[in-house]
């Protein structure tokens, strides 16, 4: 709007220059949109390809000149994918692991962040620095030993093994600590004077104030469960405990993976669908969460 106003003002003042800059502006805008829309199409194309392929017949999919819109929409691919891939089981597993680990992780994160943000104790800064230092070490290095550890604990092929080892995220603690620090200390001291307990203060004041960050952490953690691949593959090879990503890869590539790509695509679409839903409904929080995690100076 302000640009438009600017334009009219300029037109009144300098007719010659304004004509040129007007054309220039339009050209720039056209180029901008052309670029953005081209990129958007490229970004979205794999999704489109996935969706149309998932409803094609195998015969139509295999044609040397592919159709950009399916001739017959074959929804039975979805039924087949759901049954072949045993996706129901995988969904349930992923949900269980996602929800339980998110809840526990939130509790641990809140308590730790609170300790680091509000309480004073010896070696606080040194400990915090050491924790941050571990973030730089590649996780693969931990995998080797954790594999042996959970084995010794007898946790192979349980939900525990998928949940417990990754409950602590230093990154989330860091994130939440920064958020807690922004809450004025006076509030805490006033609460102390009133005789409010730490837990009550945490629950009544800090958590509500840091709610956006907590929701962001929840979503990122859930997405993590949805996307995890390497660790579950190592420790949960039993179908009863497999997560969605592993099942997907195994169900359609090992046995007759190359035989029916449309069904495979249907499976991928089924798996991606809940993430889309979450995204559409919680878009604001995810974006906030991700960009907040980014700007950490």
């Amino acid at each position, binding site marked *: 709007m302000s640009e438009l106003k600017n334009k009219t003002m300029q037109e009144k003042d300098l007719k010659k220059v304004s004509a040129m800059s007007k054309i220039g502006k339009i050209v720039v805008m056209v180029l901008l*949109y052309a670029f953005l829309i081209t990129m958007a199409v490229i970004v979205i194309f794999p999704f489109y390809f996935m969706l149309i392929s998932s409803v094609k017949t195998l015969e139509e999919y295999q044609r040397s000149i592919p159709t950009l819109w399916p001739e017959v929409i074959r929804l039975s691919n979805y039924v087949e994918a759901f049954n072949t891939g045993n996706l129901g089981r995988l969904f349930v597993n992923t949900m269980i692991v996602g929800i339980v680990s998110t809840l526990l992780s939130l509790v641990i994160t809140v308590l730790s962040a609170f300790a680091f943000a509000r*309480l004073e104790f010896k070696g606080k800064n040194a400990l915090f620095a050491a924790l941050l230092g571990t973030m730089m070490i590649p996780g693969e*290095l931990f995998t*080797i030993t954790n594999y042996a*550890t959970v084995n010794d604990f007898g946790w192979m092929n349980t939900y525990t093994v998928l949940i417990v080892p990754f409950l602590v995220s230093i990154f989330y603690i860091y994130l939440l600590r920064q958020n807690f620090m922004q809450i004025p200390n006076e509030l805490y001291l006033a609460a102390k004077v009133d005789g409010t307990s730490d837990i009550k203060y945490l629950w009544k004041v800090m958590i509500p104030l840091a709610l956006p960050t907590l929701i962001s952490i929840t979503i990122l953690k859930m997405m993590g469960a949805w996307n995890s691949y390497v660790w579950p593959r190592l420790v949960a090879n039993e179908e009863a405990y497999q997560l969605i990503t592993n099942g997907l890869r195994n169900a359609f590539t090992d046995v007759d993976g190359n035989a029916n790509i449309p069904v495979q695509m249907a499976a991928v679409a089924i798996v991606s669908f809940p993430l889309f839903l979450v995204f559409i409904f919680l878009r604001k929080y995810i974006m906030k969460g991700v960009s907040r995690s980014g700007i950490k100076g």
Partner: protein
Amino acid sequence: MVESKHSWKAWIYLAPAIVLLLIFTVWPIINTLRMAFLEGYSTMGAVGGATYEFGIGNFKQVLEYKDFLTCLGNTMLLCVLTVPISTILALLIAVCLNAIKPLQRLLQTIFFLPYVTNSIAIGMVFAAMFNMVGSAFGGENELIITAGIINNVLGFFGMDPVNWINAGSSYGANMVVMVVYIVWNALPFKILILLGGLQSINKQYYDAAKVDGTSRRRVFTRITVPLLSPMLAYVVITDFIGGFKEYSSIVGIFGEDMGPTGDPRRLNTMVGFIYDALANHQGRASAAALILFGIIFVVTLINLYVSKKKTHY
């Protein structure tokens, strides 16, 4: 004044995190060091009663292995290619998004979509788009049954089909596919952060530039980029660290063979190398993990050093 009173309390709050960290973070670091320096260590052998001597044999084996340099080279090349490409593209898209009003929200949502997808799942979609079915590709008796959608698009523009990922495909073609996929994957996060950064730049700078009649390009290089430099530094550093851990994107496209048919492990990376060794040669895997840590550490230090010099706060 509250310090001494709360000291024990703080440790209670921290207890769950510390216990878990000791078991699943600190102990692994110690144990990795131990396994890495026991010659030829394997857990199966250890169960069978074998004993292992202290030494640097694992490191030697890893470094002398013929594919080690391939893994290192692939990892580096992917980093060097994808980090700049995705950063520049993301910057361009973010700047453009910031400059428009209509459709901004919609486009922003579209650009963020890849972030919420399952990377292995979308890898399968990419693989299917590039996949070709047939025989003797590139030979005299080539027989293509299905060329794949990307090739059909190329054909529409009058280009010859390219063997992207199948038997007989070239390393260059494989790399193009990987770079496209990794950049595609990296874009949403970067766009989001850079856009967030752009929106927080004070409008006054631009207004001042407008009054001075500064050209668009100058505004971009003299105002936008410098003011955005903390975010740029952040995305570049995290992307480099992530890039050195590249693994699942390659599994997504090429499967666990980490290469096209006829040339497995051609695209293997450092992390892939570690996982290969992890099954039966835990000592070797530990040594490789330590080497990778060393590399990431050095690269991050360099990155920090450079960005400190170039970043304006």
